[in-house]
């Protein structure tokens, strides 16, 4: 027994090492006082971070990523909320097909999605920029948002909404006073994850940005010059910390109150 536990423990440690050691090199080298990535480390410095912060192009790219991320996450979460509600609440004809249709962008290789949007966008005579990137990100984030929201809304006791209507609230009042507060942890989790997906997305941005770079585009452009590598490492380290924090927050929110309500809804008796 003891033996077996050790084997599993070693396996687990190896697995985490495989997952995270490459990622850990980024922060380590970002504090290294050298212009290239190699051992031995040659001393501690925060110079790369100062250098990073001084780049005005980076600020522009960061701002572009935030704009795209906020719009994409709000729009995709809104679309996904209505869709998730319809899927969880009603049984209708073509339910499986429409569910599949929403999920497909999740499975299509991103590059195909990107090329398709590029071709359509240009043939319609529009200019490349952040607008087509945002549209692409909405398409790409909606399936993620759906998965999160369906998990939250499934098992929701819809007689709560009927009770609200019965107590004199109209459809909007019911949404605002009953549905929204109860879906809220799921909605916020969906907003955060959609934002992160958009924030980290490269392929769609690569094809559709034109001259307005998003942050991943900026990083990619910088990495062609060896002397610019250190501040990209610093930027990468910051993004890793930020992303990890947001994802953990999103998962914590998604599960918030779930246990309590499950017990609550558990008493539902079906005729």
């Amino acid at each position, binding site marked *: 027994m003891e033996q077996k536990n050790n084997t599993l423990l070693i396996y687990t440690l190896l697995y985490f090492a495989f997952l995270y050691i490459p990622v850990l090199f980024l922060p380590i080298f970002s504090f290294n006082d050298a212009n290239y990535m190699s051992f031995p480390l040659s001393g501690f410095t925060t110079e790369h971070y100062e250098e990073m912060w001084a780049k005005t192009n980076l600020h522009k790219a960061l701002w572009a990523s935030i704009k795209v991320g906020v719009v994409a996450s709000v729009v995709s979460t809104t679309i996904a909320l209505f869709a998730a509600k319809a899927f969880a609440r009603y049984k209708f004809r073509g339910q499986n097909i429409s569910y599949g249709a929403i999920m497909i962008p999740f499975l299509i290789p991103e590059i195909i999605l990107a090329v398709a949007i590029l071709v359509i966008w240009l043939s319609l005579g529009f200019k490349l920029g952040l607008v087509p990137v945002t549209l692409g990100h909405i398409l790409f984030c909606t399936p993620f948002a759906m998965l999160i929201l369906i998990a939250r809304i499934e098992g929701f006791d819809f007689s709560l909404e*009927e*009770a609200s209507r*019965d107590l004199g609230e109209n459809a909007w009042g019911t949404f605002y006073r009953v549905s929204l507060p109860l879906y809220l942890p799921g909605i916020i989790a969906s907003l955060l994850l959609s934002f992160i997906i958009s924030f980290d997305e490269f392929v769609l941005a690569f094809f559709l940005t034109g001259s307005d770079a998003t942050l991943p585009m900026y990083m990619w452009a910088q990495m062609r010059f060896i002397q610019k590598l250190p501040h990209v490492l610093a930027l990468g380290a910051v993004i890793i910390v930020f992303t990890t924090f947001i994802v953990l927050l999103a998962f914590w929110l998604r599960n918030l109150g779930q246990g309590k309500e499950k017990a609550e809804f558990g008493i539902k008796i079906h005729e």
Partner: protein
Amino acid sequence: MNDSFIQINGISKHFGNVKAVDDVSFQIKEGEFFSLLGPSGCGKTTLLRLLAGFEYPTSGNLLLDGSDITALPPDKRPTNMVFQNYAIFPHINVEKNVQFGLRKLGLTNDEIIKRVKDVLSLVKLEGYEERYSSQLSGGQRQRVALARALVRQPKVLLLDEPLGALDKKLRDEMQLELRTLQKEIGITFVFVTHDQQEAISMSDRVAVMSEGKIQQMSSPNELYKNPQNIFVSDFIGETNFLKAKTDSKDGEYINVNIEDLGSFKIKNNLNISENASDVICSVRPETMMIDKEKSDWDICLEGIIKQTSYLGEMTKFYVETKEIEKIITVSSQYFDNQSFQDGKCFISINLNDISLLNKK
């Protein structure tokens, strides 16, 4: 009191090919405790949901206190509902749950506070204002649901099997309490249940439903003593069905040949014609007598006890007789499962206790 406070006129509700409610018409009196009783899938819940406005009828119309409510959404109807699972809002406390429906009534703050206080005291929930649904027992949740509906002072309170989730002891208590409460506040109650004992013990009138139609609508007494058809007779309480054939009519009586027992003159409540030939006689187990000796009742049969079940306040005997094909169920408060050592017994029936039903 208004005898046609709620008018249900030719209401049908179809879900695809299923006729959940099939051309039903009746009226409910003001201040009445009215029950819709039937097995699962009989349409009683659909009918209640039509009254609440959660469903709209395929045809027919609904009038409440003289005005047509058929097309009104639930929030525009002067009805409130106690849900089967209570549907207490989990994100707000008891007090806020009860206040929930008062927002749109245009009351002053003081009025709201007073109403909430009064209704919580009515349902005996003072001191629970700050609790959340997850901190309440089943019985307390039920009271919150009741308070939340009553605080709006609806014209009609709709109750969808509200006692189904409670254990037996609490259910019996709540039955009494609900009944007392209804008499006290005088609001019309429409109560849905599949439990015939519950419907009979609480209601002024009961509508027994099956397959989307009303089978019989009358007082609980009438329902038990004079069932209109086999379904009602079978669904309400327990009974024995005996096959019979009609013979000549004699005023309010009719001569009937019961299985192999011979010809008897039985009261013809349903005015069955002499040509109906095949009919059914229903005899309740508790109207029969079981004894060790022969009796001088209208019918007395010798039998063998096949099985007994002891229920405390009475004992049920399942008796086989030469004359009747089926095992007859007789209940007795006088004898119990120890009384008949050899299983030999006599069962006696009075003709007055036989009700005659049309064979479907």
